[in-house]
């Protein structure tokens, strides 16, 4: 009997041993590690996983009631839980997916973390070429668990999964569902922050964020340590589509993060998104400018400038004129190369002149960007007439005389006679002039970059742009066979030319629109009258050309028409509404651009509110949205006849730099209220409509 008993015992213990080894070899849960006030284990969503694909693991932390562990930003004290993973080489582990945080107030301080059972989810994969059919994964978890006082703890948690056809772990499913329910939604709402003085401003551009902020229980968890004062309440402001969160800068703030996560939560919804630093301050801009002075960066910019110039040839305002000119040159036979070179010289020189002018004006303190020529209504008006003339010429209403710039049919003659050099050069100049309405919108950004470069480099970029614009002609001149690619001239050219008038008229419409925005609808009407008279003049001139001569009476008539055109033109420009009151109505904005001159002119007469801002300044943007561009403030300014001047320091305008230094500032925002007969009053850097109103009322 005794041997039966012993063998039974042996069999039994063998069984238990086998069972326990099997459990160690393959398990979707680690054993529970018990530490003071906290139990921890590791769970896998799948009991069998495949190679090279992402699966999810969860570290489960179960603190005693009333105890908590910490979020990625623990707050004023504490430590975020950390996990170090051990797995076969080549495995990948993502960051912890943090659950929705809670805030714990401890006396004057605040912490962020998690009470109750907490799941820290992490995505992972094992390499695609993993050779074995089981894999062991170990999490070394370090935490700090606190109630009144804190106890650090750590655990090594291991589990072993089968490798093969993926299979869900039935028993872990409910736990992963719970875990995912506690995760915030991930949103890609654009969000930025900056620091001004002791203030951190975060803006989230999303109507959904605005809607969330209306809830009583709304809170924004800032996922950067020592950025904001955790215990202090946020100041929340909203516009239709922008949430502004203002927090006091943390006393122990020492490093500005590039980005951090922000959890926006209320009782029924939680969202997590990234907040990035504002793009660049003036320091960064000039650093970038400095970096441009060497090798590859500059080369790349030059290549882009060349390509940009090349593309200009296809612009609707340029293509009609140049395509005709190209065919004329190509078919003129002998003088192709000199013509092409003269043309190139005309283009490049014109670009350089405009660039030099721009740089000189900027150096003199004018806040100008490329396209500045389009900020001048006189120039726009002139361009309107020029485009009407080119359009009517292409439509065949009249012909340019050979003495003029050598457009249209006369090109054939001018290219083959002695005046070809002059004509080609002039066409180059003209090409740049008519290209300028197209350059402004398309190349504004790139050229804005060029302007902040040292002058030599800026000029080089402009020259490259010119070479790009002239390139098709250069190619025609330099490559002997190139001309043959172009279609032979013939009667079709006349039709083509007339079709090409349409883009010219459309460009005219665009210029008129720009003019209207600048000068007002009254001026626009008068300018249109000038255009009609001018068109009539050209049409009559064309009729006389066909008749092959004109009488004295006709000459006087033409002169009269020209005189009326000039008068109307002048009238349109002198009647343009003063930028003060009128431009507001026309373009719906309540401010004018700040210039020292305008500021001086207005200061004695009426109260002036100056806002110095920059595109990269989030605080400025937030202030404008919540305090300045509001109906209340617009009404306030209108009621007290306050002129609102806005200076844009995005590109470090030296005049604004000097203005800022007068108020001992080296950065924006700066808000100053001038009331005639009173000292200037500097407003706080953080505005509300209330602060603006009270400042105005206090100083009137």
């Amino acid at each position, binding site marked *: 009997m005794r041997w039966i008993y012993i063998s039974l015992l042996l069999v039994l213990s063998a069984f238990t041993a086998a069972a326990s080894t099997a459990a160690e070899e393959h398990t979707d849960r680690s054993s529970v590690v018990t530490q003071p006030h906290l139990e921890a284990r590791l769970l896998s969503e799948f009991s069998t996983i495949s190679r090279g694909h992402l699966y999810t693991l969860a570290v489960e932390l179960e603190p005693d009631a009333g105890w908590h562990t910490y979020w990625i930003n623990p707050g004023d004290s504490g430590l975020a839980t950390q996990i170090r993973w051990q797995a076969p080489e080549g495995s990948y582990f993502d960051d912890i997916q943090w659950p929705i945080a809670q805030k714990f107030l401890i*006396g*004057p301080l605040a912490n962020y973390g998690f009470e109750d059972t907490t799941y820290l989810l992490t995505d992972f994969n094992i390499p695609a070429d993993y050779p074995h059919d089981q894999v062991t994964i170990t999490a070394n978890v370090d935490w700090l668990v606190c109630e009144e006082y804190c106890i650090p703890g750590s655990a090594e948690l291991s589990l072993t999964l089968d490798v093969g056809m993926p299979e869900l772990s039935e028993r872990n499913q409910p736990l992963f569902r719970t875990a995912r329910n506690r995760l915030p939604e991930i949103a890609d709402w654009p969000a930025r922050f900056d620091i001004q003085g002791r203030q951190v401003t975060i803006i989230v551009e999303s109507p959904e964020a605005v809607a969330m902020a209306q809830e009583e229980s709304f809170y924004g968890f800032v996922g950067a340590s020592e950025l904001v004062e955790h215990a202090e309440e946020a100041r929340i402001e909203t516009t239709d589509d922008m949430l502004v969160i203002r927090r006091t800068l943390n006393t122990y703030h020492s490093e500005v993060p590039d980005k951090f996560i922000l959890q926006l939560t209320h009782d029924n919804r939680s969202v997590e998104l990234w907040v990035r630093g504002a793009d660049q301050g003036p320091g960064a801009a000039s650093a970038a400018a400095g970096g441009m002075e060497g090798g590859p960066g500059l080369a790349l910019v030059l290549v882009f400038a060349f390509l940009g110039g090349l593309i200009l040839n296809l612009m609707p305002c340029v293509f009609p004129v140049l395509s005709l000119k190209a065919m004329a040159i190509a078919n003129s036979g002998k003088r192709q190369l000199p013509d092409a070179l003269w043309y190139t010289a005309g283009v490049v020189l014109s670009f350089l002149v405009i660039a030099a002018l721009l740089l000189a004006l900027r150096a003199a303190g004018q806040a100008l960007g490329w396209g500045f020529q389009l900020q001048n209504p006189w120039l726009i008006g002139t361009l309107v007439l020029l485009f009407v003339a080119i359009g009517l010429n292409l439509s065949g209403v009249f012909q340019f005389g050979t003495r003029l710039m050598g457009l249209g049919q006369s090109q054939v003659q001018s290219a083959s006679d002695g005046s070809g050099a002059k004509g080609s050069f002039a066409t180059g100049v003209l090409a740049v002039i008519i290209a300028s309405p197209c350059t402004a919108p398309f190349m504004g950004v790139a050229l804005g970059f060029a302007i902040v470069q040292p002058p030599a480099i800026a000029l080089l970029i402009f020259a490259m742009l010119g070479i790009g614009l002239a390139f098709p002609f250069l190619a025609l001149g330099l490559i002997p066979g190139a001309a043959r690619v172009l279609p032979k001239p013939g009667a079709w050219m006349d039709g083509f030319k007339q079709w090409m008038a349409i883009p010219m008229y459309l460009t005219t419409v665009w210029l008129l629109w720009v003019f209207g925005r600048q000068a007002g609808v009254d001026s626009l009407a008068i300018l249109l009258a000038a255009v009609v008279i001018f068109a009539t003049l050209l049409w009559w001139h064309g009729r006389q050309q066909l008749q092959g001569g004109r009488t004295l009476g006709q000459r006087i008539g033409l002169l009269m028409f020209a005189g009326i055109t000039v008068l109307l033109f002048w009238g349109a420009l002198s009647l343009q509404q003063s930028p003060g009151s009128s431009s507001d109505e026309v373009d719906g904005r309540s401010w004018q651009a700040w210039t020292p001159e305008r500021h001086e002119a207005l200061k004695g007469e009426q109260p002036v509110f100056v806002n110095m801002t920059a595109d990269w300044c989030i605080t400025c943007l937030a202030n404008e949205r919540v305090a300045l561009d509001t109906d209340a403030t617009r009404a306030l300014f209108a009621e007290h006849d306050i002129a609102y001047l806005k200076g844009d320091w995005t590109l470090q305008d030296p005049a604004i730099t000097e203005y800022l230094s007068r108020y001992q500032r080296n950065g924006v925002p700066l808000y100053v209220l001038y009331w005639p007969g009173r000292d200037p009053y500097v407003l706080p850097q953080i505005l509300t409509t*209330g*602060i603006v109103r009270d400042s105005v009322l*206090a100083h009137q």
Partner: protein
Amino acid sequence: MFKATLTLIGSAMIAASAMASPEIGQPAPDFRVVDTQGQYHTLSDFSGRTVMLEWTNHDCPFVVKHYRTDNMQSLQREMTGEGAVWLTVISSAPGTQGHVSPARADELTATRNAAPTAVLLDESGEMGRAYDARVTPHMYVIDENGILKYAGGIDSIPSANPDDVPRADPYFANAARAVLNGSDVERPVTRPYGCTVKYAD
């Protein structure tokens, strides 16, 4: 006008309350706190000498990390050896973790072989709040003119793991040495890490 002034004063006060914390380069807040011998100390008592402040709570694992490795004690010996004053401050309210009787405090100093100039018993938390001390250990350096030169953590690795002490960048020690040498502090503000100071509510 009156309302406007009120609003402006109001916003100034909001700003001021945020600024109540000590500022680098500004005079450090004065204090008057009793030590374990029953003697009162004020900051002005030490004018002409560099003063180091250490907030402590002997049961806090982060404090334990720096005492068990002898890191804190050797800093105390080094700094006092250079003529500096080292004040260990306990702001734990009675009945909270870290609160000790004068005798117990002296016993802790003896058993841990610590070498502060004095251990201050800030039961009311007044000094702690004036310095905006948040954690233990929280470290400060005040120069001989009473100007605050450093406020923040003891080093760069926020953990309770003693093995991290030699690996960390010793922010406080660097700052203290710089002030004693009369040179500039490279990082005057750093992240303070540790246990919350157990203030009376």
